[in-house]
C-alpha cells in the first residue's frame, strides 16, 4: 500500500520508518508546515534525518498531499478536543476521495464518531483506528473479532503516566507531587501532564471503545472523569493493608464511560505496574479476555497503525 502520513511526531515518524519492513511504501510525510511528497516513494531516511536536525521535513506544501496517488492516509497529527480539527478535515478529504484512513489521532473517533462513520458509508474507503486505544495492544481488533455485540464491558488501565505515578507512590510511600516530578525527570510525564493525570487521555480511549460497542453516541462530555491528583500516598498504604492498590481505571459499556481511581486487588490482572497498560474485555460467551502491553511510544503505536494498514490490504 502507498501511505501518505500526516503528522511527523513520534508515531508518524515511526510509521514512516517501519512501513518498508511491513511491505508498504511511503509517498508523503507531512508535519503542520512542511511536507515531502514523491509518488515513487519518498526517501524516508533523509526526511527523518532532516526532522532530527530540526530542519523542514521537505520543501512541499502539506496541502498537496491530498492531490497525489496514495492508498491509505495515516492521520497521526496531535489529538485535539471539541471539533477534533484539523484531524477530522483530513479524514473527510481522504474519504471523499475514496481513500482509506488509518488514525492514530484520537480526536475524530472520540469526538465526532457518527459524522466520521457517515462519511465512511458514502466512501469506497474505510476507516481504522487501532492505534488510538492502548498503543500496541490489540484492543479494538479483539473487540471486533469477538464482535462488539458479544462484549458487555471493557475495563482497564490505558494511561501509562498515571499508572507509573500510582505504582511509584505505592512502592515508595511517596506523595503525588514528588513522584510526578520524578516522572517528568525520567521523561515518562510531559512538562504539562494535565491530560494524563486528570483522566482526560484515558477517557478519550474509553469513549472510543464505547463508540465501538454502541456504534456511536459518545463524546468526551458524556464520560464521568476523575483524575489521580487528589490521591495521597497514605491512601495507597491503606489500600495495601487490605491487599489492594489504587489504579486509574476506565470502564466502557453501552450505558456510559467512567474513568477514575479505583481499588483493585494488588495481585489482580488490572494492577499492572509502571507505564504498562492493560485491557480487560468482558464477553457474553467467553468470560474475560486480558491483553497487556505498551500502550504508548512511537514504534509501539506504529505497529498498531501498520496492522490496520495490513488489514485494509488484505480485503
Amino acid at each position, binding site marked *: 500500500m502507498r501511505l501518505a502520513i500526516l503528522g511527523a511526531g513520534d508515531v508518524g515518524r515511526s510509521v514512516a520508518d517501519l512501513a518498508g519492513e511491513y511491505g508498504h511504501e511511503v509517498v508523503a510525510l507531512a508535519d503542520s508546515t512542511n511536507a515531502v511528497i514523491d509518488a515513487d516513494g519518498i526517501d524516508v531516511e533523509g526526511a527523518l534525518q532532516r526532522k532530527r536536525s530540526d530542519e523542514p521535513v521537505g520543501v512541499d506544501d502539506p496541502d498537496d498531499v491530498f492531490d497525489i496517488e496514495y492508498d491509505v492516509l495515516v492521520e497521526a497529527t496531535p489529538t485535539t478536543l471539541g471539533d477534533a480539527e484539523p484531524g477530522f478535515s483530513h479524514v473527510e478529504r481522504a474519504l471523499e476521495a475514496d481513500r482509506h484512513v488509518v488514525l492514530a489521532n484520537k480526536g475524530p473517533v472520540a469526538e465526532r464518531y457518527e459524522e466520521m462513520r457517515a462519511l465512511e458509508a458514502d466512501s469506497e474507503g474505510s476507516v481504522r483506528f487501532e492505534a488510538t486505544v492502548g498503543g500496541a495492544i490489540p484492543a479494538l481488533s479483539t473487540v471486533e473479532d469477538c464482535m462488539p455485540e458479544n462484549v458487555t*464491558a471493557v*475495563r482497564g488501565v490505558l494511561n501509562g503516566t498515571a499508572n507509573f505515578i500510582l505504582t511509584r507512590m505505592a512502592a515508595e510511600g511517596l506523595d503525588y507531587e514528588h513522584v510526578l516530578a520524578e516522572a517528568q525527570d525520567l521523561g515518562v510525564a510531559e512538562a504539562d501532564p494535565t491530560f494524563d493525570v486528570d483522566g482526560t487521555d484515558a477517557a478519550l480511549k474509553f469513549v472510543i471503545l464505547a463508540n465501538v460497542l454502541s456504534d456511536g453516541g459518545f463524546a468526551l462530555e458524556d464520560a464521568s472523569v476523575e483524575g489521580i491528583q*487528589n490521591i495521597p500516598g497514605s491512601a495507597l498504604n491503606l489500600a495495601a493493608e487490605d491487599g489492594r492498590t489504587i489504579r486509574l481505571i476506565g470502564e466502557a459499556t453501552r450505558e456510559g464511560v467512567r474513568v477514575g481511581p479505583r*481499588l*483493585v486487588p494488588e495481585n489482580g490482572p488490572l494492577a499492572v505496574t509502571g507505564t504498562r497498560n492493560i485491557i480487560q474485555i468482558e464477553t457474553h460467551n467467553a468470560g*474475560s479476555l486480558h491483553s497487556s502491553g505498551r500502550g504508548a511510544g512511537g514504534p509501539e503505536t506504529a505497529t498498531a497503525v501498520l496492522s490496520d494498514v495490513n488489514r485494509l490490504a488484505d480485503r
Partner: protein
Amino acid sequence: MGDAPTPPGDLGTEADGGVRTYTVRLELVDEPGELLDALTPIAENGGNLMSIHHERGNITPRGHIPVEVDLGCPPDRFDDIVAALRETGINVIQAGAERYGEEISVVLVGHLIETDLSDTLLAIEDETSAAVLDLSLSAPQGTGDTSSARLRLAIDSGRSEAVFDTIRSVSEEKDLTVVEPLLGGDA
C-alpha cells in the same frame, strides 16, 4: 467467689454457664476440604460445634454453597471466631443476627477529621443497609490536613450500587474523594 465478674477473654472461667448459641451462615466454594477449612477456625477459637447444615443442592447467586453452622461459645469469643473465619478466606454472610451479602472496601480522601468522620460513618450506616466493619485512618500530615481512611463495609447482596450512591453524595457534601472498588469482571 462464684458471682465474681468474669475477666473478658478468659475462656476457662467464662465457659461455666457463659456459653451462648450462635448461627453463622457461610458461603463455601464447592471443593474438597472446604468444609473442614471452615470448621477448623471455629474449633480452634473455642467454639463448640452443635450442628452443620450443608445445603448441597442450594447454590448462592455467586455459585457457592451455603452452609449453616450452629455453635456454642462465650459471647466474647464469638467475634474472634468470625474474624478467624474471615482470615481463612471464608465468606461469612451471616453472623449472629446480622446478614451480609458481601464485604467491600472503600477509601475516602480529604479533610476527614474536620468534616466529622463519625458523622460520615453514621450517615453511611443510617442511609444504607451497610455496616462499617472496620476503619483504618492515616493522617501523616496531622489531622488538620488531607487524610485517608479505608472502610470495610458489609453490604446486603445486590445493594452495593445504592450504598455507593450514598457514599458519593455524603462525600460530595464534605468535598471528599471516594476511591471505590472496581466491581464486575474478574477484577
